[in-house]
């Protein structure tokens, strides 16, 4: 007996499903089912994971959704092919984007427009046909069935679910009767919401969280039957309904969707006439390299050729041109931006001015970024001036079309705290218990909570986890651990489609109004779509503002990207640990490291950024490195051939790029294979997989005449390192920003601190610490002044003037009003200020309290005067309004008179 479940919810039904797609696929595989559908509510968020998982298990994935249709009814839709998938994406997008409050719903005409390639099942008890039948409206049900048959033709089926209950299963019989009467085939489903029967508790808990009601007050009928039933159970259940179970197989055979995951679906880059993408990229890469290095050496040419060949072979030329175009556009408008992450390993990226770290000088490995064996699109993340990210985004939308661009979603999932809070409310656990249980578990997963309760110092003293009456509660919290909670906007991800995005990806508006994909970044990558990460980095804004301020205050034009990187004053400041406010070097750990490392070169900054990380510090790698650096310990290598790879870090593995080199040099792997090895070691893997990798590495090394013991030891070091390795290219790119901010702090501290204070919150320290540091650097911090302060911190005669925007409770509109009024005439008194500025009484009082109006008198007296002045202002405004009204009335009267005369 075989059967295919066609109505299945995973936990991507967001608080209405209690199984992951992988668990569902495993279960189907266990029962030997040939196919399985996933039909989450109004979204495809779990579809790609499900598709991948099912394919790997040799099960045919059927992608679909249970959609809401007008009238609040449900309808189960399945994609039979790519046309159906595209239609489902368009339908879901339209439903979400056109909704006016409440749940998204498909209007009938929308179903009619997007029916091609879709198979429709009449739905659960909330489907239009069953709901009408259940309320005795046989005629209405027949009409509804007729409508769906008209829209979907022979791809419409009556869905039978059968949950034995005290009241019997009469609805199932009524539906079956209607199906026979109308000649519509009927199909058995189980509307699965959880894996095993006992999981109905988890589903009910999720439902009550979703409905924001205690679990005891959940509305609607309850059942324990929506679990993953075996083919035999389904056959027994539908014994009295001939053909209903078999129809599931027939429908499954009609669903043959091939998503072609991984096939690049890049937008087309507008090329000049007669130009090809590889040709243009090659030309610009060569021009850029020559510009940056002065001349093209053989080494540079070889590297360019190798990179260009890989980029072309993988079909990513267009992608590089798209990123180049975005950066070019931004730079032309004075918007600072630069690549972060592994992209800086590429000479092509550097030559195109996308990255600022020289990959040849810093000996960076292209294969850490991309290589022919890595079947994924490259990822070039851009850091952008925070204030102007929107402009870049608007440019992308304009260039590629609003319909072709969207934000990327992030799936917010439950960790321990969220699970305890939400489950606690649903189960009416007393609030003090919830609060105690939530203490000190900011990062912990709920599944590990009980396991860690006895070992973690912050949890050891709490008795709440050991209370027997709460065991069940914590068990349920663990059960929903990692479950998706809601979708939100990915911080920087922007998706660019090769055509209209909603043909491939369902979209919806976020709570903030941005259009987001229903897929997260991993699924987007699997779909082969281009995702650009435009990350707003406040440090870039600080650098930009400081440079501008230096220009305005001192008339000096500074090219911050060309400053010498061997300034002794900069390194002296760094060695003294005076780095508060400096990007990535300001934390106490970094300042302490500076005292131990005694950096003298730019490369030392790269080392420092890579050393002060949890991994190296926990494994005392920093101590080994520092001892060797200061000659207290000899520099040794496990094998002479590792000297090339680890020489720069004195025999210590510090960078991810070094893993590639070590694997290459010791065991003869190509760099591409070595990167595969590195990536495999950084992901979760089974003991067997690890052992296989170990043997392969050691045997290869032995074949190169390396002693087995040495190969084993190197492998152990690589395996241990994999957990905390840092990408050198990323460190190099960020070291540039660290150096630039440190340089600004050394030479132009007033402008630097004014900029950094203007961009709070950012960095490690609060404004008061930064202000104290500015004073320590000899910079006076002047109080706010309504005639001198701006919306940002400004430099005034070598001192910093506190901004008006810093005042507690002040609105940006009020600051605008002050600056705009002041630009006409300076404020001359409190009365003048109150009468001219649009700000609330508390805002004005706060300005007086902080001394922004000290030029006009005593603070206490001014505070007493404000209410009276505001009354006077209102009276004056009233008189003006009356005058205006009179004028309007007179004008209208005149006009009426004229009209009246005309009409006469």
């Amino acid at each position: 007996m075989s059967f295919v479940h066609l109505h299945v919810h995973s936990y991507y039904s967001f608080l209405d499903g209690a199984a992951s797609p992988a668990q569902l696929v495993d279960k189907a595989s266990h029962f030997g089912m040939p196919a399985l559908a996933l039909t989450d509510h109004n979204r495809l968020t779990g579809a790609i994971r499900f598709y991948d998982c099912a394919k790997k298990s040799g099960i045919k994935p059927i992608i679909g959704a249970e959609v809401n249709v007008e009238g609040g009814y449900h309808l189960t839709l399945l994609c039979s092919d790519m046309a159906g998938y595209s239609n489902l994406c368009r339908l879901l997008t339209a439903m979400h984007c056109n909704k006016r409050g409440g749940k998204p719903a498909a209007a009938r005409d929308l179903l009619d427009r997007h029916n091609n390639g879709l198979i429709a099942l009449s739905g659960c008890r909330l489907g239009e046909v069953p709901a009408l039948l259940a309320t005795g409206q046989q005629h209405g049900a027949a009409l509804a069935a007729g409508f769906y048959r008209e829209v979907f033709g022979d791809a419409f089926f009556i869905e039978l679910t059968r949950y034995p209950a005290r009241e019997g299963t009469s609805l199932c019989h009524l539906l079956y009767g209607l199906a026979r009467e109308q000649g519509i085939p009927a199909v058995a489903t189980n509307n699965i919401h959880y894996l095993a029967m006992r999981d109905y508790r988890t589903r009910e808990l999720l439902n009550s969280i979703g409905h924001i009601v205690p679990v005891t007050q959940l509305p609607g009928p309850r059942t324990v039957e929506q679990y993953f039933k075996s083919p035999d159970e389904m056959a027994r259940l539908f014994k009295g309904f001939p053909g209903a179970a078999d129809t599931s197989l027939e429908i499954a055979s009609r669903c043959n969707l091939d998503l072609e995951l991984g096939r690049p679906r890049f937008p087309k880059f507008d090329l000049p006439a007669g130009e090809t993408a590889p040709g243009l990229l090659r030309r610009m890469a060569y021009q850029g390299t020559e510009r940056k290095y002065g001349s093209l050496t053989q080494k540079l040419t070889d590297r360019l050729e190798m990179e260009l060949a890989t980029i072309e072979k993988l079909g990513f030329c267009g992608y590089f041109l798209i990123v180049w175009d975005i950066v070019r556009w931004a730079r032309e408008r004075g918007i600072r931006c630069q690549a972060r992450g592994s992209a800086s390993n590429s000479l092509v990226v550097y030559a195109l001015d996308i990255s600022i770290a020289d990959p040849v000088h810093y000996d960076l490995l292209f294969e850490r970024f991309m290589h022919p064996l890595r079947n994924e699109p490259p990822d070039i993340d851009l850091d952008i001036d925070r204030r102007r990210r929107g402009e870049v985004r608007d440019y992308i939308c304009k260039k590629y079309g609003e319909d072709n661009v969207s934000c990327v979603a992030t799936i917010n999932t439950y960790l321990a705290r969220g699970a305890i809070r939400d489950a606690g409310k649903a189960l009416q656990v007393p609030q003090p218990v919830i609060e105690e249980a939530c203490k000190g578990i900011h990062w912990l997963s709920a599944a590990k909570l009980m396991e860690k309760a006895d070992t973690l110092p912050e949890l050891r003293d709490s008795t709440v986890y050991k209370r027997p009456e709460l065991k069940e509660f914590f068990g349920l919290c663990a059960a929903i651990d990692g479950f998706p909670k809601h979708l939100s906007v990915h911080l920087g991800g922007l998706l660019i489609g090769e055509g209209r995005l909603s043909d491939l990806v369902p979209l919806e508006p976020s709570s903030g109004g941005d259009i987001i994909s229903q897929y997260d970044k991993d699924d987007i990558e699997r779909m082969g779509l281009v995702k650009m990460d435009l990350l707003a980095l406040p440090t870039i804004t600080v650098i930009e503002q400081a440079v501008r301020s230096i220009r305005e205050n001192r008339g000096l034009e500074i090219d911050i990207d060309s400053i010498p990187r061997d300034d002794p004053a900069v390194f002296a400041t760094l060695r003294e640990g005076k780095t508060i406010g400096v990007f990535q070097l300001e934390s106490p750990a970094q300042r302490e490291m500076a005292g131990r490392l005694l950096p003298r070169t730019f490369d030392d900054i790269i080392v420092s950024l890579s050393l002060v990380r949890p991994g190296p510090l926990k494994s005392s790698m920093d101590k080994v490195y520092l001892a060797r650096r200061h000659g207290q310990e000899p520099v040794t290598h496990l094998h002479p051939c590792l000297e090339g790879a680890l020489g720069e870090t004195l025999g210590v593995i510090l960078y991810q790029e070094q893993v590639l080199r070590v694997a290459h040099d010791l065991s003869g792997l190509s760099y591409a294979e070595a990167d595969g090895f590195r990536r495999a070691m950084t992901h979760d893997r089974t003991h067997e997989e690890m052992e296989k990798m170990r043997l392969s590495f050691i045997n290869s090394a032995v074949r190169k005449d390396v002693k087995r013991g040495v190969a084993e030891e190197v492998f152990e070091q690589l395996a241990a390192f994999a957990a905390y390795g840092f990408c050198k290219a990323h460190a190099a790119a960020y070291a540039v920003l660290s150096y630039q901010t440190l340089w600004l702090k050394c030479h132009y501290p007033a402008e630097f601190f004014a900029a950094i204070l203007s961009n709070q919150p950012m960095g490690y320290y609060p404004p008061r610490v930064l202000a104290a540091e500015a004073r320590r650097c000899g910079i006076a911090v002047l109080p706010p002044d309504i005639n001198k302060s701006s919306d940002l911190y400004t430099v005034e005669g070598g001192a910093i003037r506190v901004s008006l925007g810093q005042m507690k409770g002040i609105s940006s509109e009020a600051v605008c009003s002050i600056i705009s009024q002041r630009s006409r005439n300076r404020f001359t008194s409190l009365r003048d200020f109150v009468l001219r500025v649009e700000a609330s009484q508390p805002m004005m009082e706060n300005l007086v309290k902080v001394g922004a109006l000290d030029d006009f008198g005593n603070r206490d007296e001014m505070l007493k005067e404000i209410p009276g002045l505001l009354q006077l202002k209102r009276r004056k405004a009233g008189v003006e309004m009356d005058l205006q009204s009179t004028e309007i009335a007179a004008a209208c009267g005149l006009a009426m008179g004229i009209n009246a005369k005309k009409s006469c």
Partner: protein
Amino acid sequence: MSRHIDEPITVHVSQESVPTAFIWRRRLYRVVEILSWWREASEWWDGEPVRILIRVTAERRGVGIYELCKSDSSWFLHRVLD
């Protein structure tokens, strides 16, 4: 009409776990026919397990309709239907 009973009973089951007879108030009732069965969601937040209910016709001096309930490993006579 039905009477709510909820009293513990002893149930004899076949090899296939189908009730064949039950003892209620020291009297034996022989199950003639299984009419229907279903499972009910419980108040699990109070620690109650899922209940399986089986509606049967059973005979002692006369034939009656009874609802047997299995909760965990215990059996109860849930209702008697007149």
